[in-house]
């Protein structure tokens, strides 16, 4: 099976975020990491390849720093990478990101495309499904298990509140992968070494520009959310804080 994995670089989970001058995006001088669900999507693609053979290709869009995500994926075992390299990709909405990806892979033939179920920065949860529609492929979201069969694949979808559902579907297809579908591997030293020689194709904005339009939605402003609750911060040494907490538990929460 030939599998494409869409991956994204996002600010690290505990990175302190500051607004930039425009007030509509963050300052970019933070630490980045791979979007967590995308790491699970990559792992699942590598496992499918180990079972059924084929090729794993990783794709991302973003400025030069985003290449780190692809390098890590190549070190873990992906065969090659595609980087839509331009800072302008950062601000694209889900529709235009998917359009750019579709344009970048128009000469390829994949059996499956995986994305993480959503990104930790925008949190749209849309790009994978939009890409499926643009390609005219079926899709399934929030996937916890994938089995290949004669007709195509059988996947396990996660529904709300502990419910699941198996879905049979033909290939090619797009799947959005849920965190926790598998156990992540670490890159080996030899993998990291080999990654340096694996092909990485760069795609400039100009090459996909004709597929992309002006955004259909716009972030007017970004801000620290107003607190809806009056939070009381308890301070002091650990012992003092413990005593204050017990006082709250007894006199205000009334559970002691």
């Amino acid at each position: 099976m030939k599998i494409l994995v869409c991956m994204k670089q996002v600010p690290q989970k505990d990175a302190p975020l500051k607004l930039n001058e425009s007030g509509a995006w963050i300052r970019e001088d933070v630490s980045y990491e791979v979007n967590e669900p995308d790491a699970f999507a990559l792992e699942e693609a590598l496992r499918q390849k180990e079972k059924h053979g084929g090729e794993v290709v990783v794709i991302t869009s973003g400025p030069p720093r985003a290449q780190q995500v692809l390098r890590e994926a190549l070190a873990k075992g992906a065969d090659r990478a595609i980087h839509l390299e331009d800072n302008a990709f950062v601000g694209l909405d889900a529709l235009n990101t998917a359009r750019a990806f579709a344009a970048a892979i128009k000469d390829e033939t994949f059996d499956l495309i995986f994305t993480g179920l959503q990104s930790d920065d925008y949190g749209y949860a849309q790009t994978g499904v939009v890409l499926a529609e643009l390609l005219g492929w079926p899709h399934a979201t929030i996937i916890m298990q994938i089995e290949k069969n004669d007709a195509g694949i059988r996947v396990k979808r996660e529904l709300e509140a502990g419910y699941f559902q198996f879905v049979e579907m033909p290939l090619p297809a797009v799947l959005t992968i849920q965190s926790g579908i598998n156990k992540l591997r670490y890159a080996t030293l030899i993998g990291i070494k080999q990654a340096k020689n694996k092909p990485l194709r760069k795609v400039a904005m100009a090459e996909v520009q004709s597929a992309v339009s002006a955004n259909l939605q716009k972030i007017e402003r970004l801000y620290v959310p107003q607190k809806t609750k009056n939070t009381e911060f308890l301070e002091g040494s650990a012992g003092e804080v413990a005593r204050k907490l017990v006082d709250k538990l007894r006199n205000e929460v009334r559970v002691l």
Partner: protein
Amino acid sequence: MSDTILVVVEQREGKLNRVSWETLTAGQALAAETGWTLEAAVAGSGVANFANEVAAKKVAKVHAIESPRLEPYTPDAFSSALKQFIELKQPKLVLMPHTYQVRDFVPKLATAMGRTAISDCIGYKKEGGKLLFTRQMFQGKLAADVSFTCDAPWFVTFQNGAFRGDKAEAGASPAPVETVNVQIADGVIRNKPQEVFKEAKQAVDLTQAEIIISVGRGIKEQKNIELAKQLAEALGGELAASRPICDSGWLPMDRQIGSSGQTVAPKLYLALGISGAIQHIVGMKGSRTIIAINKDSEAPIFEIADFAVVGNLFDIVPPLIEEVKKAKAGG
């Protein structure tokens, strides 16, 4: 003809999803603000009873979008049916709850219509004649006001808990219900869904717990779960966790709180090392009292905490266990 706001309520497995009422409340508020007409729709096979249920609320009209091919749910059929209906009715604004089902088909539907969806919104604003929809970004650390820069129809999905379902106003008299039969051609539906099932029987029903001690990534290692367990025992509460802890197998899946786990509203929710990603918050924000201990002062969990401690849980929890034991012993 005035502009229309269309709320698409969700039915699943023969039940109207409760979160639909929240979206209807949002629709009523938006209708009051804009002066646009509010209508509702429900799609499925044999959904007249749901349409009638919704018609009791203050809406101008309810549409029952019918096709035998809408049951069971598939993104292909729902997208096809709603596209036909929306092209026919031309609503300005289409509102839906941000459920696992909606997020499965709305991006497809919007794309098929050459439009976009602003997803997982927690509110709206009207500024200078322009509608802005507020959504959380960066796992809730920041919020964004987002506008549409394309023509209508505009698709918006609202997060679970963003509006009060019980505030949905009843109508003076039942709204008219119209059945719309849609044609879904052969070959449109490509997925074959099977029965919905529950993994194993839920061993722990956390929804009944009065006190919940919940752990997140900040617990760092599996062996540290013991510390949280001791606190739970001292307080007489249940142990729970955010998704990454269950994904790592440190606690069983049936102790997971959040959109993919259980939704709880205990008397006390004590969050240890939980940053408060949206998916977790939706499962516990209804708790009567929330206490959060986290070393990151910017953790979103503090936004909803009643009492907050910025600090290392490994410093604070051991003396806390001792103080709780003392208090219980009548000290």
